[in-house]
């Protein structure tokens, strides 16, 4: 991974020579960033837990627990889906041009599509706490709690340490920041960019994003032509509590859609299979059923997958929603 090493190495030289801050050039006009929910930010952070800190990187494979790892700012930029779309599915940004690649200093100094909060008491799930002294910095994703010594955060602490969810007392140098374009909702909603997608061997026919048909949630939806190869999109949320949840799925309907797209629900009692007719009921939250899940994040017993494999038309993966019923 030469790109980030060179980048930070170059920055170090700049710092050594000029005493400047660790800050690459950031365009004055920030590009629009995709909308996302707080549940999505948390789900992305959860998907990175256990991987080792890797300086200058933002690489991990959601849901599969593989990849190189990430540093603290890489964790944030990937969970926040900045500076661009599709980053979540590009498990390794090494071969792509990521510019600007925000460091903790940019998160601290609000040099991007986010802004300062006046008080830590305003922090909500998915906001961040950042510090920077010009030569080093740290950024963590706020999860919960503001009492009794330390908030609970997601973070990549440092070399030799795994990405984790931890209670961490953070001094006054850590300032609260909030991403722009967060869709505020109290429900657990995961939009299509947070779906882990497998397209099979036919890369050209992979899942693609579209805005052609109305009724989608967020900025767009994701679609895939029917195939005989493995092709699925999967959402894994972090469930706040063990219990039963109503599970909803959303799509945009059309005559070229699958009339019986396969959906599998991994619950704590096993896997259930459903099928959905995506030629109708577009633009609404379609109730798949009520299923039990354990608290926490676990793809094996807490996820929803929709399959293009064996379908009889285009399959749409737009968004899913979980509403606790007890």
């Amino acid at each position, binding site marked *: 991974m030469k790109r980030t090493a060179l980048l930070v190495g170059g920055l170090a030289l700049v710092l050594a020579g000029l005493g400047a801050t660790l800050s690459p050039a950031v365009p004055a006009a920030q590009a629009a960033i995709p909308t996302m929910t707080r549940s999505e930010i948390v789900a992305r952070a959860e998907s990175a837990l256990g991987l080792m800190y890797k300086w200058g990187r933002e690489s991990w494979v959601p849901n599969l627990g*593989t990849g190189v790892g990430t540093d*603290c700012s890489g964790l944030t930029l990937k969970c926040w889906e900045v500076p661009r779309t599709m980053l979540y599915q590009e498990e390794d940004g090494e071969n792509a041009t990521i510019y600007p690649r925000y460091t903790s200093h940019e998160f601290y100094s609000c040099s991007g599509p986010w802004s300062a909060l006046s008080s830590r*008491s305003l922090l909500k799930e998915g906001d961040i706490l950042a510090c920077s002294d010009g030569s080093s910095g740290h950024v963590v994703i706020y999860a919960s709690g503001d009492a009794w010594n330390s908030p609970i955060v997601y973070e990549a602490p*440092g070399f030799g340490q795994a990405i984790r969810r931890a209670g961490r007392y953070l001094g006054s140098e850590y*300032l609260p920041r909030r991403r722009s374009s967060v869709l505020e909702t109290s429900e657990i909603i995961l939009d299509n960019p947070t779906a882990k997608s497998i397209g099979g061997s036919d890369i050209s026919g992979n899942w693609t994003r579209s805005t052609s048909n109305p009724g989608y949630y967020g900025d767009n939806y994701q679609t895939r032509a029917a195939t005989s190869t493995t092709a699925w999109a999967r959402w894994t949320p972090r469930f706040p509590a063990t219990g039963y949840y109503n599970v909803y799925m959303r799509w945009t309907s059309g005559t070229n859609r699958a009339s019986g797209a396969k959906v599998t629900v991994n619950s704590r009692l096993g896997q259930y299979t459903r099928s959905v007719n995506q030629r109708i009921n577009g633009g609404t939250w379609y109730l798949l059923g009520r299923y039990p899940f354990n608290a926490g994040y676990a793809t094996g017993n807490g996820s929803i997958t929709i399959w293009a494999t064996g379908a009889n038309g285009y399959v749409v993966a737009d968004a899913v929603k979980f509403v606790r019923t007890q």
Partner: protein
Amino acid sequence: MRQRSPSGPGRRSRARGRVAPALSLLVGASVCALAASALFVPGFVFGAEATEVAEPVEATEAVAASEPAAAAEAVEQPETGEPGGAVDGDPAGPAVEETAWPAAASEGALLVTLPWGAGAGEVGLAKPTEGLVRGPEALAVAPDGRIAVLDSVNRRLVYLDDAGSVTGNTVVPLAEPRFLAVDDKRLYVLDCDADRLLVTLDWDGTLMGATALPELDDVVTGMFATPRGPSIEIAHDGVFLLHATGRRVATTAGLATTGAVLRPLSGRPVTTDLDKTARVTFAPGRGVRVKSFRVDKDSLSAAQTSEASPAVAPGRAIEHLVSVDGDGRGGLVIGARLADAEQGVRGRAVLALTRVAAAATASRGITAPDAGSTDSPTMLLADTSLAYVGQPYVVAPDGRVLQPVAGEDGYSIMVHTFPAAEEVRP
């Protein structure tokens, strides 16, 4: 001999604030120069990881085509108002009047400064370019006054006597030691992330045993020593007593992992005897509520004995609670972050510690003064540390407040005491 170190006693404590110029220069000048050189100095672990390994690639994974998303900017306008502004719940709470208690932070008395390093009497500092700057992550005081510092970076314990002189150190066989609790006989060190083990040592540095941390509902946020063993706080909301069964003496070559039994309690232990716990909650605008519980030592069940609304940081608006501890006299020390503290300014008073004295009915629990009372001793602390040291302060069993501070020249322990007047409410 109270303490002895396998690596030799190291009476190198630089008491009363002397400096290490060479080391300071190293800290000050090396961050940039080391950024791409992968240099790791023992005790100074700079995160300058420049080497890379081959990237594992998921065979079935295809890179998805990128398609710019529609611009849907500014769904929400984040708050950018002045501190204490009336946004989203008004964190500053209702308007309050200024009171006479000191506006300046307590300076305290320097107990000791341990230089950065890996030698005897030194403690480690890890400073990655992107990541958490870490120093010793825990500090604990035994009832007899002895002090232990958990040098997380060097993975060892440093022992000090009650005067702050280093008496030895010992290796802790954990990858990421994070929490520390002590009494006069035992030291408990917990790694809740990498090894998920709790090890027990004595003050001579002998490893007494190890216990696997069971699956927990959420993250560990604290640990306390009790006569029944260590108790662990989970996500600020529950406390478990962790029993080791079949404990045996183990060596660093062969740790014994034993079974464990979790017993839920309610609230945070506030006495070393585990006969009382307290659950404290705070909501902006609604103040602090304290529920105290009496613990039955046989059944390890907790029964609520009282509930009160003490005036924490009277006269000042608080942003959130920081810590709740027993004060060694039956009362509580409640720490809070001031809502009107200027963000990100080192050296400013940002923490207010209010001592809620035990009342006449303390035998039935912790009964706090009424809301609105302004006679609870309050002390201000500055948030001055340049590195993460695990906790902003520690309340010693004798009621003193020890503040760990990571400075340029090393890790210092400052000792603060509450104002003497109005200590106990009649």
